[in-house]
């Protein structure tokens, strides 16, 4: 058991280190890489959890990459997992930036480095769009009118009207609250009743 736990922590650290060292661009880039690694490859999270964590990471203060690694780390291996994931996320930029700022002039004016970086942008665009197509498809397949509306409206708001991301997240959350209030499916108002979750024994203890 102990061996397995150390192994998990090590994999978590290495995965975040590797992802963080190669993800240029904003927070959504690293989230797409994390989805490929932790959802598709290691199966530590499901796609819904990854999307929930992205929304939470985006809504909290601080860098999205750091926030997302905190959430994934806690989920996978508790406090030690969180620390390993954060360390893996912040070490590569610290090391790379320290090196680059020493050789800044050389780096900034080098034509070959510029060519590599420009080419990598094409790859990054392809990766983000690939993940969005997969996730968009899974929303489409559920055929939930409200969710389809939210997806279309959020896309128009951010892509065409450049509305602040926080405003978009808040509006989607408000729609969620409104839908919960409309939902009268249970015999008693269901808002505050915990569903049974076989994975989470602590919850049941406390609600007893």
């Amino acid at each position, binding site marked *: 058991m102990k061996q397995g736990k150390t192994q998990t922590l090590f994999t978590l650290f290495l995965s975040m280190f590797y*992802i*963080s*060292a*190669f993800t240029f661009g904003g*927070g*959504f*880039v690293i989230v797409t890489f994390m989805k490929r690694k932790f959802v598709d490859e290691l199966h530590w999270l499901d796609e*819904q959890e990854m*999307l*929930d964590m992205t*929304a*939470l990471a*985006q809504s*909290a*203060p*601080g*860098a999205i990459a*750091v*926030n997302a690694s*905190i*959430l994934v780390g806690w989920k996978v291996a508790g406090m030690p997992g969180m620390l390993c994931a954060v360390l893996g996320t912040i070490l*590569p*930029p*610290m090391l790379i*930036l*320290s090196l*680059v*700022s020493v050789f*800044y002039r050389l780096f900034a004016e080098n034509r070959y480095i510029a*060519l*590599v970086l*420009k*080419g*990598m*942008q*094409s*790859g990054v*665009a392809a*990766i*983000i*769009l*690939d993940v*969005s197509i997969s*996730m968009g498809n899974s929303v489409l397949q559920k055929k939930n009118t409200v*969710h389809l509306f939210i*997806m279309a409206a*959020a896309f128009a708001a951010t*892509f065409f009207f450049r509305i*602040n*991301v*926080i405003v978009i997240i808040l509006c*989607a*959350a408000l729609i*969620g609250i409104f*839908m*919960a209030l409309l*939902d009268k499916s249970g015999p008693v108002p269901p808002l505050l*009743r*915990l569903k049974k979750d076989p994975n989470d024994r602590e*919850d049941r203890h406390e609600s007893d």
Partner: protein
Amino acid sequence: MNLIELFLSFLQIGLFSIGGGYVAIPLIRYQTVILHGWLTESQFLDLATIAEMTPGPIAINGATFVGLQVAGIPGVICATLGCIFPSLILVSLLAWVYRKYRTLPLLQSILSSLRPAVVALIASAGLNMLLQVIFGSRAIHLSSVNWIGVALFIPAIFALRRFKWNPIFVMIACGLLSLLLGILGLA
């Protein structure tokens, strides 16, 4: 003394940069150029350029750059710790709330409404990046199409969707192909 100031400055940057990099940049400028004078305007521009060209969140990059200038390696550590400290506390709290109350119908309804919005946000970030690659900006002009960028993007998306290639491999391959085409004088 400088170390404590660095920690507190970047603590504020970490605490108030809600929503990612584009909010962090003006905060970093205010703390480092205007308030403390750790960087000149031109050094700050250097920082913004380097941060754009290297991996990692801009706030962490800024903490490393400024920490190194002001107090060497201990400066890097203090500034970076300050920067992630608010996240460590607040997001850990969120992680606990998520774990404990995820099955609450109200929270389930909120989260299931957030998911399609997040998908849209990620898709929009990807499309913006594609426009940036193809046209060099969001302005669409046929005269300014970067054909090399298009020629790299199409096989890249095909390799990812059809053959499920490793994304980091795809990214590095695009970078190296671009270098090769550049050396051959096509770019």
